[in-house]
């Protein structure tokens, strides 16, 4: 459709390449450290190794939704309504949903091993599941169509309404669970005696997954920019074509 073709030498920039390299190195270490170098837990045995994925993905998922909220607010408040904020908000929510799915999956597998059950109605778990569904809805709203401006306006309001919703959900679930006897289960990240190497691997995991997040978001928002630009050029091309037809 586009009238001019540009050749790109790959899709990366020096910044994204640096993020990518850092993520590969950090996650490579986490893989080796998590699976082989770190000791097994006295109580949980090898199951504790799930932690090196579960905790960092949970952190990145929450970080992603915070980034979406802030970027949406920036789009809405900013006088210029810069589309860059909208693209970062969208890209961050997409990556956040992915990481949230990984968190819920790894968490329920870990729960099955240590608690004997895939799911407990703990406020933190329940709120996390609601956050996941809420952002699936956010992505569906982004896909409603219309111009980039309409999409940005709608989705930024939805993202800010989610910021209202999640504390209310969390609070009512806390209140709901407080009526029942507290689940007497092993708290997965509280009761683990961490030695230095375990803590180091965990923190390195958090770092690695955060860089991975930055890498994914920066690529994803560039793809979104190209998609928006392509929509505009496609429209221009169609208009020109029609004009030529009329003149001919």
């Amino acid at each position, binding site marked *: 459709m586009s009238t001019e073709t540009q050749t790109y030498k790959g899709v990366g920039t020096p910044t994204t390449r640096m993020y990518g390299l850092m993520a590969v190195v950090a996650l490579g270490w986490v893989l080796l450290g998590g699976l082989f170098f770190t000791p097994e837990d006295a109580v949980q045995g090898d199951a504790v190794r799930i932690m090196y994925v579960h905790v960092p993905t949970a952190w990145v998922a929450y970080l992603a939704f915070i980034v979406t909220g802030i970027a949406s607010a920036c789009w809405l408040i900013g006088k210029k309504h810069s589309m860059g904020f909208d693209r970062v908000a969208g890209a961050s929510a997409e990556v956040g949903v992915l990481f949230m799915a990984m968190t819920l999956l790894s968490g329920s597998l870990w729960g099955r091993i240590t608690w004997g059950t895939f799911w407990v109605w703990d406020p933190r778990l329940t709120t996390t599941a609601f956050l996941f569904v*809420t952002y699936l809805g956010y992505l569906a709203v982004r896909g409603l169509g219309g111009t980039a401006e309409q999409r940005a306006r709608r989705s930024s309001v939805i993202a800010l309404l989610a910021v209202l919703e999640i504390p209310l959900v969390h609070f*009512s679930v806390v209140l709901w669970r407080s009526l029942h006897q507290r689940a007497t289960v092993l708290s997965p990240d509280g009761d683990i005696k961490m030695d230095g190497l375990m803590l180091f691997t965990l923190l390195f995991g958090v770092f690695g997954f955060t860089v991975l997040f930055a890498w994914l978001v920066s690529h994803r928002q560039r793809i979104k920019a190209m998609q928006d630009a392509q929509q505009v050029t496609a429209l221009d091309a169609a208009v020109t074509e029609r004009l030529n037809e009329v003149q001919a």
Partner: protein
Amino acid sequence: MSMSTNRIARAVAAKDLRIELRSRVVANQVLPFSGLVMVMFAFALDNDDVLQRVAGGLVWLATLFSLFILVQRTFAVETYDGALDSLRVAGVNPQGIFIGKAAALFVQLLVLETMLFIAAVVLYRVNVNGSGLVLLVTCVLCASAGLAFVGTLYGGLTAGARGRETLLPLLLLPVVAPVLICATRATESAFRSGGLTVGEGWPWVAVLAVFAAVFGLGGLLSFSSLIEE
């Protein structure tokens, strides 16, 4: 010359209720549907004691299922012939539209819930005393206000969008989860199910009031952005 928000709200609410009185879609379709849901719950659970115990939850689940239909209906009448666009082009204050549509939805929800609670008394054999009734009425008022606000907010967003029938429940259900939790607990207290006392229900009603206030305010601030195309 512009009308006050208050007058616009009253005009929009009166219009919506008049459409309902003439078309009787809610009376002839939504109310029978929710009554049917109550009967289906009884088929599924098949135990008088269990039904009595969980009656509060079933009433509010039936309310939520019907809410989606009510919200779709309340915005279907706006998207036919581009009525909502005409209102906007005419420069009608969006806050007035928001309050008016929420008020009409609120009235319809009150009618629906009254019927559902009567159904619960008849079908599920719950009983309510005087102080329980005061709690129940307050709970219904607060919960309906919250549901009307979020329903109008998300209904306005999905109005006219492709695939709105499936998108609305996905957006609305997580948001109204606090209403389901709090209204159910308050109603169980009003019914004194499972040894609860009426007094235990009031803190839940307070959360419902906060919910309604938060989304009422959120709706006033954001509704114009959502319907602006």
